[in-house]
């Protein structure tokens, strides 16, 4: 049977992708941000998951305003990196474990999570930047990837509690799949940032650090946080962090924090990163 062994929380700032794609990661502006992922690259190489279940949001790229699904599961055979207005990222095509994705779709809906099924979808920086940070520059992604796109652009995003419980359903779906596969789940986005209007540039490191702490110590309580707290304290785009609750919900109640990294700034954003392992792993 498939087994979920660990979770990764990770920001997905587009400028990080640009920095990697234009080979300026060793510049003083970027070097400290990338240094915090050296251990992560080593870790994922050692864990070597067969499948990454990657929770992210589309930034008005594959989804325009005509259709806004709250949860959309990528079930296509592969996903091309999208042109977001400055050309597609020169990164490998993302390949799905299509049979497992179909199983997860069926399992989630019967588990009363009414997800949307995507049989064609391009993927933007929200998905490819975390893969780049964890795997570096590669010819092909070392793992198959099952994407779950979450609406966090048009208010309201799903609640933290809903995301946490969806994580539990994702765990049940993964671990009822009849192949011996090792799976790692990513929750991406954040941390504090506001990209728009007169309060743009907001950063709240104390709030971010408390969020990272409570992911391990108090995930159930953390998932109860109302949206307005994210919007006010972590910036209008900080509400992306509800997606980390899907990752946390999929893990055991008790986890071990393997690694953490926090850096300000990457463009307009506080970069946060955490690796959590199930204790039994």
């Amino acid at each position: 049977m498939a087994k979920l062994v660990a979770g990764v929380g990770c920001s997905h700032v587009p400028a990080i992708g640009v920095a990697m794609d234009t080979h300026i990661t060793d510049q003083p502006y970027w070097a400290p941000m990338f240094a915090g992922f050296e251990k992560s690259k080593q870790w994922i190489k050692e864990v070597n998951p067969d499948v990454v279940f990657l929770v992210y949001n589309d930034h008005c790229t594959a989804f325009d305003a005509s259709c806004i699904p709250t949860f959309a599961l990528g079930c296509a055979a592969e996903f091309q990196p999208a042109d977001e207005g400055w050309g597609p990222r020169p990164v490998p095509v993302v390949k799905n474990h299509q049979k497992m994705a179909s199983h997860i779709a069926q399992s989630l809906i019967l588990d009363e999570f009414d997800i949307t099924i995507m049989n064609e979808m391009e993927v933007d920086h929200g998905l490819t930047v975390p893969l780049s940070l964890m795997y570096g520059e590669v010819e092909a992604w070392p793992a198959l990837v099952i994407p779950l796109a979450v609406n966090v652009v048009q208010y309201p995003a799903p609640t933290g509690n809903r995301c946490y419980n969806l994580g539990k359903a994702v765990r049940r779906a993964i671990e009822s799949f009849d192949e011996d596969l090792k799976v790692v789940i990513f929750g991406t986005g954040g941390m504090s940032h506001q990209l728009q209007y007169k309060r743009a540039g907001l950063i709240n490191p104390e709030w971010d650090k408390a969020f990272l702490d409570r992911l391990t110590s108090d995930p159930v309580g953390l998932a109860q946080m109302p949206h307005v707290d994210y919007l006010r304290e972590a910036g209008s785009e900080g509400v992306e962090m509800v997606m980390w609750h899907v990752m946390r919900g999929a893990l055991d109640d008790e986890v071990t924090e393997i690694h953490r990294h926090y850096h300000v700034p990457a463009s307009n954003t506080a970069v946060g990163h955490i690796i959590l392992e199930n204790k039994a792993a």
Partner: protein
Amino acid sequence: MTDKPYEDIPGTFVFDADRGREGYHLNQFCISMRLQKNRDAFNADEEAYLDQYPMTPDQREAVLKRDWNRMLELGGNIYYTSKLAANDGINFQELAGIMTGMGREAYRDMMLHGGRPIEGNRYKKEWGED
């Protein structure tokens, strides 16, 4: 009425369903800038290209004038308007420099020094606004 507990946050538009409704055609125009063939058509004749999108006269004027804050006031969302900015060669950080009125260098410098602090930036009343 629809509960909007976020309306007292200063300098911020929360892109909710009401804003999504008001900004629909503006945002659909902006997302079309994602593709090169549309960028080429728009850049060749902005007025003619905009005729395809039944946005309000105010929205159309904000687009033509590249009044980025006005676009947000009229229902635009940053992830959409940033596609138009990208067409103009403006990235997210430069766009933030414009929207905040700080300018590119001062904004970049603020981010390098830890960003805009949360203290004094939680409530409109802290900005002297209602």
